[in-house]
């Protein structure tokens, strides 16, 4: 790779890359994101490469391993360009046929097409899949066009053009003005206006300023930052360089969760390639501006997503937050002014510069602009990453894009905002998604986790889950959070195990107020949200646990029993074999089995293995 030393050279390189590529040449695009990896895409990729070699098609057919396009549920995903034929759940056995039939002869293989779960109709082309149709994929859409390990792929889709524009045609103040005008708000959860943050950091005292990309996506149930860092790391790097120029920083850090090995790898490769091209390092593109980036890995602590804790961790210390009387934009990493933004926020920056603030500000609601990526997961048919304009309703996302609730079950609630958010009930499904509306509903945007729950999920159990999670992740520095969460978890455990008593709900509410008022950082002040929203919207479930000692959803072990529905059980013995404690007895063919309640440990395996629905939870 040759170092590029002017904008003209960059454009020349871009042209030559595009020229070498034939848009009509068939190209097999395979998702290599973590989701598809879990479904075995590695062997599918290897099989494609091998088959192409075997048929001597190396010059005629391209293969591109990309980041996550979002539809993880249906992985491993394969798209055949240029026609955009969409194959799902592809296995090694399908590979030879895809090449000989679809790539070479243009024939469609029916069994690999995606069937619309509502109409049963098979869909051939990717953009027509209902999951994608209603989305506005400004940020994540590029994942599919790029091999994240090749900087040339990013250049081919217009990458680093925004950087050139900023470095040679805009002053730092103009850049900040543009970002402010766009109305971009922080995608990490807080929703603070990005341009305002940049402006404050630029004005802060001191010559050394740091730029941080927060990829410590600790919010369980959210994975858009992982997918962006894995799938399009250069868009994040470009955003960071633009931010550094605007703020006046020369050193940047990308802080990635340890649980994301592929994101770490791809971020490192991207930085190295950008350095080789002269897009990072000294005198970027001959502009005289210097900026470099280092990758740091986290150590598996949720609290390190909080800015001051993250910075402590970057300094090699224990990741404890500090009181922010003085903001980190004034005194952050090593006590120097530090500007921290989330992955998705950084990825929005090149888009705003390229398309203009006015264009960006037209998307969304009056106070929340642009698109937001959500991870739509849990009890929903089409799980995966979804990018929609702000202002779309929860109902549209869950039912139109997500395809509704599996197995005809009833929707109960959707949890947004991670452990700091809350559960939003059916009655509020028409809430438009933006920062302020979700807060009004008692939840929050957070980083964009959207966990759908159905009638089989117990709301007290969910509240206990989040409180136990936060208790484990509380750093222990301040008393309200450390002790308060422990007490709340004890009370919730009592309720779920049949020891709940009158007044427990009120006590939970009182403890919540204490945490909100007295905790040091946002982990503690937002921790009660899952409890408060579930009490507010699902109080009857709490009362059923406390007064009737019943778990209406059939989740809380101490309050349920498994029963054999005799009319439905043909004595097939599946459950008899699966039961780990031998609590189920075979009574002869065509006779229902018998479950010994004394021996039953309520592990639920019999319920899972039964194909006839002959086991119920009471």
């Amino acid at each position, binding site marked *: 790779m040759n170092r590029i030393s002017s904008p003209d050279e960059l454009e020349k390189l871009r042209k030559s890359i595009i020229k070498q590529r034939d848009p009509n040449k068939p190209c097999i695009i395979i998702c290599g994101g973590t989701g598809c990896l879990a479904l075995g895409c590695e062997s599918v990729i290897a099989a494609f490469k091998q088959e192409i070699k075997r048929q001597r098609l190396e010059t005629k057919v391209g293969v591109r391993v990309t980041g996550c396009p979002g539809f993880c549920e249906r992985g491993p995903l394969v798209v055949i360009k240029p026609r955009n034929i969409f194959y799902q759940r592809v296995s090694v056995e399908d590979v030879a046929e895809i090449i000989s039939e679809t790539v070479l002869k243009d024939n469609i293989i029916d069994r690999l097409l995606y069937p619309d779960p509502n109409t049963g109709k098979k869909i051939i082309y990717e953009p027509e899949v209902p999951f994608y149709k209603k989305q506005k994929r400004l940020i994540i859409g590029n994942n599919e066009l790029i091999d994240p390990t090749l900087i040339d792929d990013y250049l081919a889709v217009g990458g680093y053009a925004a950087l050139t524009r900023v470095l040679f045609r805009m002053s730092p103040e103009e850049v900040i003005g543009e970002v402010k005008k766009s109305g971009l708000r922080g995608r990490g959860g807080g929703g603070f206006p990005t341009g305002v943050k940049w402006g404050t950091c630029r004005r802060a005292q001191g010559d050394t300023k740091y730029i941080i990309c927060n990829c410590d996506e600790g919010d*369980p149930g*959210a994975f858009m930052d992982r997918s962006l860092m894995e799938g399009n790391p250069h868009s994040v790097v470009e955003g960071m360089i633009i931010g550094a120029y605007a703020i006046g920083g020369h050193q940047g850090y990308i802080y990635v969760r340890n649980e994301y090995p592929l994101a770490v790898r791809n971020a490192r490769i991207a930085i190295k390639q950008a350095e080789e091209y002269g897009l990072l390092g000294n005198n970027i593109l001959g502009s005289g501006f210097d900026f470099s980036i280092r990758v740091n890995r*986290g150590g598996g602590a949720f609290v390190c997503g909080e800015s001051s804790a993250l910075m402590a961790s970057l300094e*090699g210390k224990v990741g404890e937050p500090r009181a922010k009387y003085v903001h980190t934009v004034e005194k952050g990493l090593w006590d120097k002014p530090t500007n921290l933004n989330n992955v998705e926020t950084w990825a929005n920056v090149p888009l705003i510069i390229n398309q203009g603030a006015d264009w960006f500000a037209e998307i969304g609601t009056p106070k929340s602009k642009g698109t937001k990526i959500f991870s739509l997961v849990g009890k929903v048919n089409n799980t995966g990453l979804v990018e929609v304009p702000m202002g779309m309703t929860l109902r549209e996302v869950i039912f139109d894009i997500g395809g509704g609730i599996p197995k005809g079950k009833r929707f109960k609630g959707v*949890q947004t905002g991670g452990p700091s958010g809350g559960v939003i009930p059916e009655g509020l499904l028409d809430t438009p998604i933006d920062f302020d509306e979700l807060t009004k509903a008692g939840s929050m945007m957070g980083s964009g986790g959207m966990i759908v729950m159905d009638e089989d999920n117990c709301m007290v159990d969910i509240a206990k889950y989040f409180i136990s999670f936060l208790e484990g992740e509380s750093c222990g520095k301040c008393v309200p959070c450390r002790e308060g969460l422990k007490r709340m978890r004890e009370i919730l455990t009592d309720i779920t195990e049949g020891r709940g008593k009158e007044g427990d709900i009120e006590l939970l509410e009182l403890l919540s107020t204490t945490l909100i008022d007295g905790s040091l950082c946002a982990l503690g002040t937002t921790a009660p949200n899952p409890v408060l929203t579930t009490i507010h919207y699902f109080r009857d479930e709490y009362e059923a646990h406390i007064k009737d000692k019943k778990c209406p959803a059939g989740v809380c072990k101490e309050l349920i029993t498994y029963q054999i529905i005799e009319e439905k059980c043909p004595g097939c013995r599946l459950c008899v074999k699966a039961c780990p404690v031998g609590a189920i007895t075979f009574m002869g063919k065509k006779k229902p089995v018998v479950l010994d309640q004394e021996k039953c440990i309520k592990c639920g*395996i019999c319920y899972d293995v039964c194909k006839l629905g002959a086991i119920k939870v009471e």
Partner: protein
Amino acid sequence: MESILDNYQRDKGMLVSILQDIQAEYNYLPKEALVELSQALGAPLSQVYSVATFFKAFSLEPRGRYLINVCLGTACHVRGAVKILEAIERELEIKAGGTTTDLEFTLETVNCVGCCALGPVVIINGEYHGQMKTDKVKALLKSYT
């Protein structure tokens, strides 16, 4: 150890990353390594120890040949991750955090690996197993022995 330290120019600020590399090398953080590290970085042992015990990713005990991580993120939780964890605990006769006596398996939990669409997820030595079911646990563990 020397080469790990050199990779990071003996920078105190890279303590977390250095510990990660040491753990990748030894499979856990041996006491001797922590002492040596504290001297090499000129950082008090108490600081090295506090960092090593604060972050969930570190272990001060030797771990098994296969590290099983059961994801307990929210998406996995609502799809029954706890049942999967309990099934593995029963099968290996250890609790989460424990290691089998033959040092074959260590069982740990993790708060989300970002593979939410495929929950519940179990990761064994970096290999992801999505859409796990309780009745698949036995066969999965067997495939590693």
